[in-house]
């Protein structure tokens, strides 16, 4: 049977929505699951989600636009978020920022042409005692050095997804 991308997306959302009880409280967990699997929350996905939770698509979009970790359109496969808050700043986040920009050839807020990396600033991620810190997708890296940045990026390039980062904190 031919299953289109939209059919699969709809089936996923229906299943996840039911699991969440189908009420508006289930919105954010549902958005996170869609984001995780599809890397974005498309127009179509928002409308299906709204339908499942008996709210309006525009409300779903409003919530997505409020949170930086939810995306309306696909970005890099690896989203790198470097903490820019005071502790990490003092611990030397500027050097890492330069390393990241040089290694990836993009500046903050941009995505590489091959669609692999998106580089962003993050505000405090709660790792002030172990700064400088950064997030790659959902993985936290602490006491980051420029060498580690380089090695992690290599590991990412050589992998197909999050799996490439398993056990790589000590690189």
């Amino acid at each position, binding site marked *: 049977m031919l299953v289109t991308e939209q059919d699969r997306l709809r089936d996923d959302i229906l299943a996840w929505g039911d699991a969440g009880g189908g009420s508006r409280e289930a919105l954010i967990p549902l958005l996170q699951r869609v984001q995780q699997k599809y890397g974005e929350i498309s*127009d*179509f996905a928002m*409308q299906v989600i709204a339908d499942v939770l008996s709210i*309006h698509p*525009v409300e779903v*979009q409003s919530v997505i*636009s409020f949170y930086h970790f939810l995306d309306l359109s696909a970005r890099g496969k690896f989203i790198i978020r470097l903490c820019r808050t005071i502790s990490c700043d003092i611990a030397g986040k500027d050097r890492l920022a330069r390393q990241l920009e040089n290694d990836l050839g993009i500046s903050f807020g941009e995505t590489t042409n091959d669609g692999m990396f998106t580089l962003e600033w993050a505000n405090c991620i709660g790792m002030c005692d172990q700064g400088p810190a950064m997030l790659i997708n959902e993985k936290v890296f602490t006491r980051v050095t420029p060498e580690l940045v380089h090695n992690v990026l290599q590991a990412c390039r050589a992998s197909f997804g999050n799996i490439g980062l398993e056990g790589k904190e000590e690189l």
Partner: protein
Amino acid sequence: MTDKPILDDTSRAPVSQRGYVIEKSGMDDAIGGKVTINIDGKDIKIPLGTTILEAARSLGIRIPTLCYHEDLCVAGVCRICVVEVEGQRTLQAACGYPVTAPITVKTHTRRVRQARRHILDLMLSKHYGECYACFRNNNCELQTLAKEYGVDFFRFGHPEKPLYAVDRSSPSVIRDMNKCILCRRCVRTCIDLQEVGVLEGHGRGADVEIQTFMNKPLGEVICINCGQCINRCPTGALRANDPTDEVWAAIDNPDKHVVIQTAPSPRAAIGENFGLEPGTALTFELNTALRRCGFDRVFDTNFSADLTIIEEGTELLLRLYKALVEKDASIALPQFTSCSPGWVKFLEHFYPEYVPNLSSAKSPQQMFGALIKTYYAELNKIDPKDIVTVALMPCSAKKFECNRPEMCDSGYKDVDYGLTTRELAQMISETGIFLPDMPRSDFDDPFGTATGSGVIFGATGGVMEAALRSVYELVSGERIENIFEHADIIPVRGFQGVKYVELTLDKIGPVPDLLKPLVPNWDWLKGATVKLGVAHGTANAKRVMDDIKAGGKFSECHFIEFMACPGGCLGGGGQPIPTSPSIREARAKAIYAEDSVYEIRKSHENPAVLKVYNEFLREGPCGHKSHKLLHTSYIERGKYIS
């Protein structure tokens, strides 16, 4: 007061975030029932849970508001209503502070005044536009407050250039986000009051903008054009699409025969634009004013409202006949009214599978347009291409309706322009006419003055009442006054969100001449109970539709009246601003008062309507010609947009 707090079940917020309702005790002296607070040195005893704002208003103390609106839930976002509460470190928003203890409030200390002035200055720093080039000039809540608080310079600057492009994509509603102050009244109107869900705030903090889904133009989203957001916007960010320039051009063109029809609701409200109290009907003064403006003929939309009742009522009887006698399972019941174009578009978007239930009869506005460009043109030997039909409506969705491609059955655009009450008031004031001073004059022939049934179309329950008066008399052969005193069908009146009534037809009479070609007799209706529903505001319409979907009591109804706007047409999106429950009540009173003085109060007794059936629509109601001119079809739009 009960021990257990009661969860607010009217809120749409998640259970975990819902507030508790503090039960207001009926016993004044019961402990905890009331509390005495002090506002600006005056004591007042109020039920627990009353907000500071409500308490202050009942004391006659003015606290300015912007995001607060009587029809909407409290938002507390604009902060203009801040007051000082003794013992609190920060200023408190009066609209969102329910009193639970004896407190002392100061409403105009230096700190409060300064805060309010700063809030205004901040709003103005992103509010682009000049007041004299704005349709809300002199009727703008921001402008009023700027004057009240003595704004004489822009402390935080003022935009020199527009920040947003004006969205003119919708035939009904124009959005100019340059004037938006983010009070979110439109958001609460669209999501909570109407449950359509077109507008919502996007982004966070200083970057918030009110947007549609995917920031699409208003003409491409699921907007039903009801215009309720226009009526509640405190500034000029939302307005109706104004065709007055085109109408003036038509009037000034000597080759054009410009005809206007006026609906009952604008006549009951237009006085508000001239400083009169709500609830002053100016029907006959308006006729004179329109002629002086240069309109060649002034007609009463009530004529075609009566026609609608005949066509729609006949359609209902035919549907019932086919379903009950001929056992035709394909007949869609209950039949829904189709007079409200906002409601029609709501159904097309959200319940497309119920499109067959909509009455195929056009709305009064469109019926009139089609008749003017055929019957009236023939009668007066005017080429229909030289006729310009203008409709004065309380409605912004009527602008959309007259532009629907289906509405050209006369061979021309049936209605050329839809004017709102506000726009017509503007046109009249351009001519220097003070409307309340006009001498009274009647409507023009051949359509004449209509019946009371047409007038009450303007209020919720009105179409139902009019239909009942006619259908009952046509079927039973008896006078409706026998069962309802003075033909006032009180059970379908009033602003209750959803109404349900049953009427048993004990007696049947002979089939009247008008309907003889359609049904042989009424025997099949003897003893039948007709079940009827009335809903106003699309949020209530949604309740009823969901009930029908679930197989509830409304699914057994035969006929349901829906109107998109709260209160019916009299609360329409083209009516004078502001609106509130008490204003709508006053307008309803004016409409029912007008109905009660009419000599003829039943649609099927309107001599002009009967004349049209004798001379023009000779095959009678729902006949071939009336199907061509007076009936239409609808589109299953669905709510998914790409």
